[in-house]
């Protein structure tokens, strides 16, 4: 009995372990027992039938012979002849009795070994019968306190047609002796008596019993021999298998050094050889795996050291870069701040000169000063952008958050860029939604975001183009503002880079390029407002820049 874990469903079930050897021995033994027993039974049955038939044939022949030889004894009532015949039959070992019955039913002569005689009715029944066959009747009779089966063989003794005597010349006398009857008429045969012999089946039964004993003994010997041969054969088969199972368990337990040598040259031997080769292959593979593990471990250790080293180098480089970035920001901040002051002063003087405070200017001087003023504005915007970026990266950009009407901010910025739009015959329109809620933000920073987006749109929209600034409630928490232009569009591979610092598309001419910080600053400011900014664009058709700003708490 063994408990087996069913791996498929994880349950334990009870099962009986029956070895292959036991199964084989049991099956073959049952077959041998069934076949031998069946054959023995059939043989015994055949022998019993044969013995019975032999006894019946013997009795039939005996009674026919006795009837023939004793016919004249019955006819002539010659007891001496009948006694001689009876004694002859009684010498037969199976013979129990012989009875001659006369034509009147009286017993002419009889002899019995055991004072056993047949039922007279058997003989009487034959007198009225036309049968000339032997009548066989079996009955039981006592024999020394035991019952035995007796077979009674009875045959009527008939006298043939006297006119058809086998001696032709004797027929003359017969013919002459019977005046008045036809010589061609056959007189029916007459029953002159009945002879009965009794044969015992005891001797046959004894022979049968002896034969049964011998057959049973031989059958048992054959069965035992067959079982023994089966056991030896299965042992020869299962012993190598057991060794194989033992070694397989050792291998399964991790002991790959376990080996088994083939002891036979049959399929089991081939299996053992194959298993040994498999074990050897597993051993080789295990060694290779262990070697690989060792190498991997060594590599892992080296890699860790290298990673640590690289990390340290990167940390050092990062620290240097952070320092450089800080120095750059500081530099940009300082430079921008320091540049903006003189620029403001220069711009003041230029405007004074243009206003004529320093005297009348010629047209040529006025055009030159206008260009100076324009470039001063451009330079000032670049400086402001640098300063804003520096503040944002340094974390010093502060938002003065409060409820802001985004529609008003949009209208204000759109109004401020109408002049620039008209210069390029661009249609710039604000399309606000009805009932737009207040957003939570810094009005100046929102103005700056829109300024950067609209400024870019005007810059990349050709003459006669259209720019729409749409404002709508995106969801329950935010308001979305979209700047749609009909410009040249942004190639797909550049859409992810348009919000990077100092990035300009290759398609933008150099003279049109600024600091490259407008969209980067817009993105940073939107994210400071916890919103999102994204772009959709189709080359040749235009771009859509959208950003969301959270709705202010009511």
């Amino acid at each position, binding site marked *: 009995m063994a408990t087996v874990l069913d791996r498929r469903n994880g349950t334990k079930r009870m099962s009986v372990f029956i070895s292959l050897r036991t199964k084989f021995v049991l099956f073959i033994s049952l077959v041998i027992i069934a076949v031998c027993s069946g054959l023995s039974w059939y043989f015994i049955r055949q022998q019993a039938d044969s013995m019975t038939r032999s006894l019946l044939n013997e009795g039939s022949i005996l009674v026919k012979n006795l009837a023939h*030889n004793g*016919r*004249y*004894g019955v*006819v*002539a*009532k*010659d007891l*001496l*002849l009948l006694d001689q015949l009876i004694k002859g039959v009684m010498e037969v070992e199976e013979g129990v009795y012989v009875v001659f019955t006369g034509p009147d039913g009286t017993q002419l002569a009889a002899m019995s070994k055991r004072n056993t005689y047949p039922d007279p009715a058997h003989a009487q029944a034959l007198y009225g019968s036309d049968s000339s066959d032997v009548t066989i009747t079996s009955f039981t009779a006592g024999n020394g306190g035991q019952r035995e089966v007796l077979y009674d063989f009875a045959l009527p003794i008939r*006298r*043939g047609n*006297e*006119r058809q*005597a*086998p*001696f*032709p*010349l*004797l*027929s*003359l*006398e*017969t*013919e*002459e*002796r*019977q*005046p*008045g*009857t*036809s*010589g*061609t*008429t056959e007189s029916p045969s007459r029953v002159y008596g009945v002879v009965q012999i009794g044969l015992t089946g005891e001797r046959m039964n004894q022979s049968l019993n002896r034969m049964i004993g011998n057959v049973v003994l031989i059958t048992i010997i054959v069965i035992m021999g067959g079982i023994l041969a089966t056991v030896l054969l299965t042992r020869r088969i299962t012993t190598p298998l057991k060794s194989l199972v033992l070694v397989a368990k050792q291998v399964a337990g991790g002991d790959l050094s376990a080996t088994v040598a083939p002891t036979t040259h049959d399929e089991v031997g081939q299996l053992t050889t194959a298993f040994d080769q498999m074990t050897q292959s597993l051993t080789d593979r295990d060694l290779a795996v262990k070697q690989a593990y060792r190498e991997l471990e060594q590599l892992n250790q080296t890699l860790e050291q290298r990673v640590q080293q690289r990390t340290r180098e990167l940390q050092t480089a990062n620290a240097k870069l952070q320092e450089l970035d800080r120095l750059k920001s500081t530099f940009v901040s300082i430079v921008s701040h320091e540049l903006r002051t003189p620029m403001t002063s220069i711009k003041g003087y230029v405007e004074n000169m243009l206003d004529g405070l320093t005297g009348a200017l010629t047209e040529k001087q006025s055009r030159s000063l206008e260009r100076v003023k324009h470039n001063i504005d451009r330079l000032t915007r670049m400086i402001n952008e640098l300063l804003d970026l520096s503040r944002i990266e340094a974390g010093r950009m502060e938002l003065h958050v409060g409820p802001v009407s985004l529609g008003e901010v949009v209208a204000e910025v759109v109004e401020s860029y109408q002049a620039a739009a008209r210069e390029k015959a661009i249609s710039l329109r604000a399309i606000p939604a009805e009932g737009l809620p207040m957003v939570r933000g810094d009005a100046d920073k929102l103005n700056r975001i829109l300024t950067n987006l609209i400024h870019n749109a005007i810059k990349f929209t050709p003459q006669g183009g259209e720019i729409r600034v749409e404002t709508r409630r995106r969801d329950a928490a935010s308001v979305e503002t979209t700047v749609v232009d009909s410009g040249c569009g942004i190639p797909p591979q550049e859409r992810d880079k348009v919000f990077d610092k100092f990035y300009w598309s290759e398609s933008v001419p150099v003279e049109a390029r600024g600091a490259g910080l407008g969209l980067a600053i817009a993105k940073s400011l939107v994210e400071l407002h916890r919103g999102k900014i994204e772009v959709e664009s189709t080359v040749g058709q235009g771009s859509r820049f959208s950003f969301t700003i959270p709705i202010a708490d009511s």
Partner: protein
Amino acid sequence: MCLLAVLAVTVSVEPIHAHEVAILKSANIAAYNQAVSGFKASMPSNTKFVEYDLKGDTSSGRKYASKIRASGVDLVLAVGLKAAIAARLEIFDVPVVFCMVLHPSKYDLKADNMVGISVKTSIGQQLSTLHTMMPNLKRIGYLYDPEKTPRLSAEAANQARQLGITLVDRQVRTEEQVPAALRELLAEVDALWLVSDSTVLTEESFSFLLGASFDRRVPVIGFDPEFVRRGALLSFWVDSADVGHEAGQAAQAILEGLSVSSPRVVLPKQRISLNLGTAGYLGITIPSNVLNMVDEVY
């Protein structure tokens, strides 16, 4: 030429009177039929035969005999005792040849118009043959039922005595008496002679007679070759065809005008059957001159 041939035939062929013979047969048994066949074979081919079968009925025989007498046949052949008796009683003026009658003297078959062919051979001839074969044979016994079979004649006894042989007989009246009489007889004789007596000799008793005789090493002598075939030493017998042939010879003589009064009984040819196996068993050496006489050897 053709005319000459016809004339030659006409002149050469004398008109022959075709006799008409009536055959009155007692019964349709093999022995009678063989005799009739032998008779017909020995008669001229132009003889006309009219057969009557009594079928064992004597009264029918007398009716047939009357009819035959009225029919004007030239000769009557009576086969068997019943036919012979019928002819004896009804036919007086037509020659009658009878045959196959065992004991004609017993039934008064003597008449002027009757002549018989015996079915027995000469006792003296049989005794002589036996003496030649077995010179030491002194006593021969036989059983008979006086109701059916007459005792052997004094003449036969005398002939035996001349050969130094004594004939010993035992009378039996029933079949039941046969075994005891046989045992008694076998104790006294050197050979057993079977006679045609249905009380003594039946199909059943033959084996007993033969067996009992063999037990005492007594040779059995019979009158039928079948006995020899079944184990008897010797049989002196008459072939039924020979009897018919003798009857035919007698009939031809009568039809040719020979007186029918002499001889009254004709003895047919004696035939001998011998079983050499039995002879060997009994220690009997058969002389060569006897062997030359034997017709059938088994």
